[in-house]
């Protein structure tokens, strides 16, 4: 639910697969030996913490929600003074933020960054502070594994999502398609796009192309068509492969034969959100958690928002996924860390363990116009999540019945990790491949892929 900024939208799949559920449980949440610091922390003393991610005034509903939680928190813990900031994680300024010591005590960051943050010692070890909380013990262990290294936990996952096929239910109806039966194969997507293009004013299909989103979506589609773009240990680029070539052919067909992809191909994350929310696009591949973005922030009619599981080719590998975590400043004092952890717990997790709180929050959120019950990948155990849903049922203001297909399958889909090494550079390189295919009818996909592979391979070789 944390707003995803344009550049941070490249938050990609975490390092977990469904299989990891059965595999390694890295002591989800319980402190490893060597802990015990928390016992020395005085949790009653007055302490001040700075917290980031306060929504800006352009998002009045979200901001009201945030301020409400802030107030409640200060009431519950009068000794903690919270200084909210609108600071967000951004790829280009993160390092400077850290180096300059202006990182707030707690801030949200995408899954993709946490391991390198840990390696660079840019986040605090919070294992000891998590152990005490019962709330955190309900965290899904494989989700928590994302934030761990060497049996220590360095962040708290707060939200997760998968990529999906977003579609406009209203446009589907206009085009004579069944909004409750979204396309499940890529051929079906193609025919649906044609129908929409013919019978409505909107364009059938869209793909983002700018600011690394082009490569991000291409990677997602490659997985769905059957191949990754790097080998497992990230030493070799596997950009030249049948699946990715297949995706590019698919784009070419939709763009040049069917002409269902519109005329503007310089589309970044926010452009795409606006185009979709204003009903100009029938379908596109995007994070399935974009309900708030579309409906709350951009005024899309909630009944028009549709999300379907990402179609897979017969040998598709699965779906790209990702999420956000709360990370903590390494320069915080133990008291600050304890307080900050409490804030995260309060802000995002109380509702899972206390019915009254869940209901009160949902009620207030609904009143503020915030989405309650939007489609998401739970970070807590399924049973806990279902319980919460049942508690807040009266306040769910999201037409969940529209997302049946997605919600019923979201946990069963195979989740594929993002490229392990230099994902950003990979996406950047692939951006121009996607743009080429969409703007030049004579683009030679094999040549483009080979060039991209050579370029990225040399980036990998440098280490």
């Amino acid at each position, binding site marked *: 639910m944390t707003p995803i900024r344009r550049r941070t939208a490249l938050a990609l799949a975490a390092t977990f697969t469904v299989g990891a559920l059965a595999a390694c449980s890295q002591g989800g949440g319980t402190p490893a030996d060597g802990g015990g610091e928390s016992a020395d922390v005085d949790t009653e003393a007055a302490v001040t913490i700075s917290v980031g991610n306060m929504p800006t005034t352009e998002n009045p509903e979200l901001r009201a929600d945030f301020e409400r939680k802030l107030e409640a928190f200060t009431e519950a813990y009068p000794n903690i003074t919270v200084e909210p900031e609108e600071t967000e994680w951004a*790829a*280009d*300024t993160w*390092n*400077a933020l*850290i*180096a300059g010591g202006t990182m707030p005590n707690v801030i949200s960051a995408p899954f993709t960054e946490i391991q390198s943050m840990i390696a*660079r*010692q840019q986040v605090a070890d919070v294992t000891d502070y998590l152990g005490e909380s019962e709330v955190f013990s309900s965290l899904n262990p494989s989700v928590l594994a994302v934030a761990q290294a060497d049996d220590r936990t360095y962040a708290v996952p707060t939200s997760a999502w998968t990529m999906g096929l977003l579609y406009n239910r209203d446009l589907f109806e206009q085009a004579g398609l069944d909004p409750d039966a979204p396309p499940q194969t890529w051929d079906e997507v193609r025919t649906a796009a044609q129908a929409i293009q013919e019978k409505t004013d909107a364009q059938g299909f869209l793909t983002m*192309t*700018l*600011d*690394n989103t082009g490569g991000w979506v291409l990677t997602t589609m490659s997985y769905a068509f059957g191949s990754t773009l790097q080998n497992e240990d990230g030493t070799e680029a596997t950009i030249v492969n049948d699946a990715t070539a297949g995706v590019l052919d698919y784009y070419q067909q939709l763009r040049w034969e069917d002409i269902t992809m*519109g*005329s*503007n*191909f*310089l589309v*970044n994350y926010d452009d795409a959100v606006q185009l979709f929310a204003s009903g100009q696009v029938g379908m596109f591949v995007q994070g399935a958690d974009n309900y708030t973005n579309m409906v709350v922030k951009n005024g899309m009619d909630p009944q028009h928002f549709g999300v379907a599981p990402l179609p897979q080719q017969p040998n598709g590998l699965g779906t790209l996924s990702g999420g956000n975590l709360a990370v903590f400043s390494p320069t915080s004092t133990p008291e600050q860390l304890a307080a900050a952890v409490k804030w995260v717990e309060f802000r995002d997790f109380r509702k899972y363990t206390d019915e009254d709180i869940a209901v009160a929050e949902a009620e207030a959120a609904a009143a503020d116009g915030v989405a309650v019950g939007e489609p998401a990948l739970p970070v807590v155990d399924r049973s806990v999540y279902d319980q919460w849903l049942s508690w807040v049922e009266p306040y769910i203001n999201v037409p969940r019945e529209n997302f049946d297909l997605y919600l019923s399958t979201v946990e069963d889909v195979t989740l594929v990790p993002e490229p392990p090494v230099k994902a*950003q*550079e990979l996406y*950047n390189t692939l*951006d*121009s491949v996607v*743009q*080429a295919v*969409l*703007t*030049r009818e004579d683009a030679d996909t094999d040549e483009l892929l080979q*060039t991209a592979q050579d*370029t990225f391979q040399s980036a990998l070789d*440098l280490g």
Partner: protein
Amino acid sequence: MTTATDVTAPAAVEPVVAPPPRRRRRTPVTWVRHGGLTTLLFFVPLLLSFGYFSWWPILRSLVLSLQQTNFLTSTWVGLANFQRVLADPLLGTAVWNTTYFSLLAVVIGFPIPILTAVFLAEMRRTRGLGSALAYLPVIIPPVVAVLLWKAFYDPSENGLFNTILGWFGVGPIAWLNDPDLVIPSLVLYATWAGFGTGVIIYLATLMTIRTELYEAAEIDGARILRRFWHVTLPQMRGILLIMLLLQLIGTFQTFTEPYIMTGGGPENRSLTILLLIYRYAFVAGDYGRATALSLLLAVALSLLSGLYMWATRRWSTS
């Protein structure tokens, strides 16, 4: 023993030694008493400002270009950054794009302010209005202007420019989406945004051309056009040459337009050198390569300036 020669000898001897110059002993005390401290105090703001935010960063760039840094540690890598920059295939693209942009901007964007200024100079009553209008685009913050023009350049047939073209029966143009048109589109925008400055400066210069020159030319029987060619232009030579150089240097550093309008696309066809530097520094987090490219660009521009000054030294009036 004195002889006649001895009498005249004194003339050959050195004249009376002048009194020794008043040797001012430069002690701190005398220095302060003569106002040295106050003078220095006047220099302090400049020295601090330039020292911290101009000279030091330039020196630091030289150092950075030879290092790899990740904010925790820095390692010396010699010329590796430069090698990597020069080996980057995108460098060729960026240089080509930037050069193309600058040359096109000169061909299109340099004559327009001159002509406009010349016209305005003749329009006695409406000159003020004309100047104000011309300067208006300069006042608009680039961000607003760029976003506006981005909307104008909408490639669908309902885009503003495409609608206008539609009135004349010309099909919708892809503008920024057309790999071949993206740079000309950016140049068109840049010309619109910047020509006002040129107009005002040239207008001011035009007003200072001495009447006698025109009168003489008129007496010599020169028609209007010839007067323009033989009096106006030569008199403007100095300012024209400088403005041309400044424009070249400026357009080589284009960043805002491609950054906001196209992100360097499509397919890196609007990637400029500065945008590449930005990518190195803030997307890849590689400050070493970014400064290396910055240095190369700075050296290239300095050479260009030097060459230009030398080539035009016969022509400038100052």
